């Protein structure tokens, strides 16, 4: 019989300047990268980094005012290249030191950065 770990929802807000340190610590603690996604909110954008350890989730929220350049975590978690390229193609974010950069050609979309929306 299992505990109800699925109800545990931990969200921690981080800043871009501190992102790599926090992610590095999570890696050292044995966390596995689950997913990364971007969302356009009423004001600005938010990136969500989800990590798992023993079936319990930890989510890092990175609020950003506008689409711009962010640090890549691919030097810590190489599989993150999938998500960072996706966010580059759909939202227009640019990731510094992206280990495998498709330069906007990972998704074949008919219009560039279709999910970026109108910025205020």
């Amino acid at each position, binding site marked *: 019989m299992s*505990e109800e770990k*699925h109800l545990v*929802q931990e969200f921690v807000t981080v800043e871009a300047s501190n992102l790599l340190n926090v992610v590095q610590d999570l890696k050292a603690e044995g966390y596995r990268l689950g*997913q990364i*996604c971007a969302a356009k909110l009423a004001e600005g954008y938010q990136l969500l980094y989800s990590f798992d350890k023993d*079936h319990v*989730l930890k989510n890092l929220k990175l609020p950003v005012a506008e689409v711009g350049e962010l640090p890549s975590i691919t030097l810590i978690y190489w599989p993150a290249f999938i998500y960072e390229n996706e966010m580059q193609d759909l939202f227009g974010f640019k990731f510094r030191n992206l280990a495998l950069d498709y330069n906007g050609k990972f998704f074949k979309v008919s219009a560039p950065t279709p999910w970026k929306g109108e910025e205020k």
Partner: protein
Amino acid sequence: MSKRTIIPFGPQHPVLPEPVHLDLVIEDERVVEAIPSIGYIHRGLEKLVEKREYTEMVYVIERVCGICSFGHGWGYCKSVEGNMEIVVPERAEYLRCIWHELSRIHSHLLWLGLLADGFGFESLFMHSWRIRESILDIFEKTTGGRVIFSVCKLGGVRKDISAEGLAEIAGILEGIKGELTELTEVFLEDYSVKNRLVGVGKLSYSDAVELCTVGPMARASGVVQDIRLDGHGAYGKLDFAPVTEEAGDCYARCKVRIREVFQSIAMITQAIAQIPEGDIAVPVKGMPQGEFVARMEQPRGEAYYYSIGNGSKFLQRMRVRTPTNMNIPAMVKTLQGCDLADVPMLILTIDPCISCTER
């Protein structure tokens, strides 16, 4: 030093039901690097949250995939139910679990057929899919659909299964166990099958962990990881342990999936024995306002469903992260060093679903 050549693999290829492209850098007949490229069938399904009410969006999310559609619908409902703090009736949780495990059997049998087809064993392919038909018949009888069921809704499920219906399902599953045992013997003991799978495409335990691999791909490398262990739905009340193997090769991945078919039958049998009487849905009131990350163990592995509500009838964001997303890096890794002739087998054994991946 051998000359390096780049061979394009896909997006159209006999072993690929869906389009993915790989640039295979080879030296003689050996792959030294593989660069994946996707995006041929990106449908922008997540973007539709801006135009579909949160109660309707389940029909869109179900269409992320035609094989694990029920699990996607459940994952979406779970995320929004978590967001709105809706408590689903216990009977509905059991019914969801039964349909989800039936989907796993259907998915794995489909995959086994494709694998057999991939290495040219056509009768094995036909037998796998013949048995799978029995599962599709159960879907049709209990939900009305064979591919998309639309039986999962926010707050519960849309249809109940009678006691007689549940007994019939248990009987059908008991009946196909014998046929599955015969099939298993061929998949795991036949010389020609082993020749194509044993020792091919090895992924070590440390690589599986480092590459954040999920599902049968991870479990075949000894990683004990199964989101059903987080206690969601009726899973917290069922007795099971993740199926794992140690070898990490194509054969181990095949073995894990075959053992999971038997495991799913055992779990459905348990669920049928335990399912309580009661309601199958609760009314859903209000609008989602908050956020919730739900996870499912789909047949191909862990999937994420992240919803953000803004108090309106439209969600601010709906994110679906499917298992193949997370297994592409491992596929790239295992392709490095393999023989060109083994590439199709290797790609097949991650059970890629590109429609899921691109959404």
